[in-house]
C-alpha cells in the first residue's frame, strides 16, 4: 500500500538523489528499486521495522556499500564513480559509531579535519566550537576508550560536522543520548536545515520523526512503501492528524505490524 507520493520527479536542485537503487546480498534482495530525492535544507527521516533496509540504504548513500543497481548522487556527484567529490560534501554518523579507541577526542577531530583538508585557522575555530556545542570539552583530552556510548556518538557527530557538509547522514542518531543531548541534537539538526544543509536520518523513534522531519519515508522489506509529510501520512492512513500515536498507527498499517493486538504475544510467550 502506498500513501502519498513515492517517486518524485528528480529536480536538478536536489541534494541527494537515489535513482533506481537496489542491493542484493547473495540472492537476497535487501533494497529494491528505490527512487527518491531530497531537497536542499530538508530534514528527511527514514523509518521502518528492523531489517527493512534503512542502514543498507544509508551505507550505499555514503559509499560504504556498492549498489547492485542504480546510482546515488550527492550534490550532483555519483557516490561510486565520483566518490571523492561526493564524500567531500557529506558527513556520516553510523549507529553506535566505532571510533579509534587509542586516540583522544581532540585527535579524532584533528584526523577528521586533516582528511577533509580543513585549514589551520578554520579548525582552530571549529574544533573548540563543536566540542563546546556538544559538551565534550572536558573529555577532549581523554582516550576514546574511556568514553561512554553517548559521548562517542557526540564525538562522531562533531567529526561529521567538521567540514560543514552539505548533506548529513545519521543512522539512529539519538540512540545512547541522554534527554539533554537528544534535545541538543534536535535543535542542532533544525538549525542546520534552516541554514540550507540537508539531513537524512534513519530512526526507530517515531516521536523524533514526527517532531523533527519535514518528510518521512517508511521502509518495509527493502521497499519505500510510503513517503510524505507527517500530516499527509497520518491522514492517508486514517489515523487522524496531530493525534498522539497517529504516526505510529500509520506506520503499523503501512508495514502490516500488529497494532494494539497483544494476545498473540501472550500466547507466544506462554507456549
Amino acid at each position, binding site marked *: 500500500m502506498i500513501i502519498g507520493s513515492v517517486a518524485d520527479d528528480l529536480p536538478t536542485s536536489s541534494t541527494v538523489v537515489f535513482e533506481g537503487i537496489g542491493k542484493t546480498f547473495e540472492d537476497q534482495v535487501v533494497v529494491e528499486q528505490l527512487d527518491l530525492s531530497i531537497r536542499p535544507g530538508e530534514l528527511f527521516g527514514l523509518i521502518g521495522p528492523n531489517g527493512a533496509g534503512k542502514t543498507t540504504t544509508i551505507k550505499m548513500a555514503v559509499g560504504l556499500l*556498492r549498489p547492485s543497481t542504480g546510482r546515488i548522487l550527492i550534490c550532483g556527484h555519483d557516490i561510486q564513480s565520483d566518490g571523492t567529490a561526493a564524500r567531500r560534501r557529506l558527513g556520516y554518523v553510523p549507529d553506535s559509531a566505532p571510533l*579509534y579507541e587509542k586516540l583522544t577526542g*581532540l585527535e579524532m577531530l584533528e584526523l577528521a579535519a*586533516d582528511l*577533509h583538508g580543513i585549514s*589551520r585557522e578554520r579548525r582552530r575555530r571549529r574544533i573548540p566550537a563543536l566540542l563546546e556545542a556538544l559538551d565534550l570539552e572536558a573529555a577532549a*583530552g*581523554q582516550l576514546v576508550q574511556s568514553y561512554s556510548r553517548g559521548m562517542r556518538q557526540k564525538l562522531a557527530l562533531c567529526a561529521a560536522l567538521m567540514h560543514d557538509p552539505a548533506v548529513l547522514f545519521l543512522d539512529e542518531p539519538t540512540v545512547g543520548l541522554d534527554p539533554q543531548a537528544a534535545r541538543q541534537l534536535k535543535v542542532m539538526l533544525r538549525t542546520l536545515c534552516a541554514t540550507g544543509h540537508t539531513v537524512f536520518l534513519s530512526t526507530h523513534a517515531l516521536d523524533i520523526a514526527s517532531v523533527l522531519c519535514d518528510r518521512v519515508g517508511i521502509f518495509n522489506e527493502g521497499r519505500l512503501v510510503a513517503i510524505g509529510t507527517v500530516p499527509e501520512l497520518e491522514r492517508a492512513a486514517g489515523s487522524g492528524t496531530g493525534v498522539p500515536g497517529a504516526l505510529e498507527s500509520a506506520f503499523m498499517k503501512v508495514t502490516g505490524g500488529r497494532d494494539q493486538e497483544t494476545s498473540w504475544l501472550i500466547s507466544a510467550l506462554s507456549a
Partner: protein
Amino acid sequence: MIGLATAGFRSSWNSRWRSGAGRRLATMGAPVVGILIWVGATPVVEHLLRRADLGRSGHLLGLLSALMVVLVAFTLGTSVSFALAAVYFARDVEWLLLTPISPRLFLTYRLSCQLLLGICVGTAVGGPVVLGAAVVYGSPGLIPMALVVLCSLLVVPMALALLAVVALVRLVPASRVKDAAAILVGLVGIGVAAVDIVATVGSGGISGFGIGNVAQGIHTPVWLPSTWAAMSLVDSVRSQWEPAAFLMLAQLVLGVCATAGAVWLAGPMLREGWFRSQMAIGRRQRQNPRFMRLPPALAVVRKDWRMLRRDPAQLIQLLLPIGLFAVYLLAPRSRGVGLGAFQRFPIWYGPLTTSAFAALFAASGLGLRAVGSEGRQFWCLKTAPVSARTLLLSKLALPALVATGASLVLMISAEIRVGAPVGQMAFSATLLVVCVLGLSSLSTGLGAVWPRLDWTDPRRAVGIWMAILFMVVGAAYIAVCVVALTLALLITSQPSFLSEALALLTCGLVAGVASLAALRAGHRNLARMDL
C-alpha cells in the same frame, strides 16, 4: 557445554562457508593445500631424520626434552594472551555471562576451544614430523601417543595461564594485564634468546639458538612433566608400550587435574574480574592542540603511529622478532652469521640476508595488518574524501619506514662489527632498502586483499593462516631476491662494479614486480570493498 560447542562450531562454519565466495574457496582450498604440503614435507622429514640418526636414545631423549620445555614455555606465553582475549575481550562474553551458564562451564568451554585450536595448528605444523618419525622408526602407534601426550602436557600451561589471568584481573584491570603480559613475554623472550646464544657461542657450540647444546643432549629433571612426555615418546619409538602407556596415563591424569583445578579455582573469581575489566581507563593525554594541518595520507600515518605506540601489546609483538634477530647478529664473540660459508661473496652478503628476514617479521607485523588494523573503525576513512590509492599508500608508509629502518640498523651494526668498508656498507644498504620496500609493499598489498575487520583485539587483525601464508610468500620473495643477487654476483669471479650493478638491477626488478602485483590487487579490493 554441547550447546556452546555447537554454537561455536556453527559460528566458525558460517564465517567460513556463508561469508562470501572468497571465503568458501579459501575454506575448500586450505585443506587441499595443507594436505599437499604434508605429502611433500613428510618424505623430507623422513630423510632428515634418517640422516640425523637420532635413534640413539640419549640424543633423542635430550632433543625431545628440550623441545617439550620450549613447547610448554611457548604455550604458557601465548595462553596468557589467549585467556585475556577469550575471557575478557571477546564480544560474546557479556552475553554468555548473563545466561544461566556457570562461570566454570564458560571457562571449560574456552579452554576446550584453545586446546582444539592448538591441536589444529600443531597437527598442521608438526604433523609431517610425527608422521615421518613414525615411518622412520617403524612405530605407527607413535601418532596417537604423540597426540594424547602433547595434549595432556600442553593443557597444563593453558590451565595455569587461565587461572593466573583470572586471578590477576581480579586485582588489576584486564587491559593493564594485557599490556604487562605482552611486555613481560617480550622481555623474557629476548632475554632467554640472548643468554642462550651467548652461552652457546661461549662454549664453542654452533652459533645460533642453542642448536649446539641441543645436539649434545639436554637432560631435564625426571620429575618435570615435559620429561615424562619426552620419555613416553621415546618409549613409543622403541615400541616399549607399557612404560609409554604408563607415562602417558600419568600425563593424562595431570592434565585433567590441572584443568579441573584451574577451572574450579578460577570460576568464582571470573565475574568480579570481568566487572573490573569493564572499568574504563580514562588516561589523560597531554592537551596541547597545535592545530597543524597534514595531508590526508600523512594524517593516516600519524594516526596509525599513535595507535601503535599506545598499545604496548602490539608494540612488543612487533619488536620481539626484531629483538631476537638483533641478539643473533650482535651477540658478543658471535661469528654473526657464519661468514665462513659466504667467503666467495662480499662481506655484506650474510648480514644483508639475515636483516632481510628480520624485515620479514616487521613487514608481517605492520604491513599485513595495516588495513585490517582499522577494524570496525574503517568507516572513518572510507567515508572521507580520500581515494583508495592514497589510502593504500598511506598504509604502506609506516610498515616501509619501520621495516626498512629496523633492518638497516641491524645490518649496518653487523657490518661494522665485521669491519665492512663504508662503500660496501652503502651499497648493501641500498640493496636492502630496495628489497625491504618490495617486502613491505607485498605485505601491505596482501593485507589489503584479505583484511580482517571484525576483530576485538587489534593483534588479531590478521588471521593465523594469513600470517603463515605471508611468511611463506615473504620467505619465497626473499629467497628469489637472494638467488637473483647470488647469480648476479657469481657472473664474475670477484665482486665488481658490474656484478654489484647487476645485483641491484635484479633485486629492483623482483621488488618492483612483487610490489606492483600486490599493491594493484590490494587497491582493487580496497576500491570495491563493501563495509
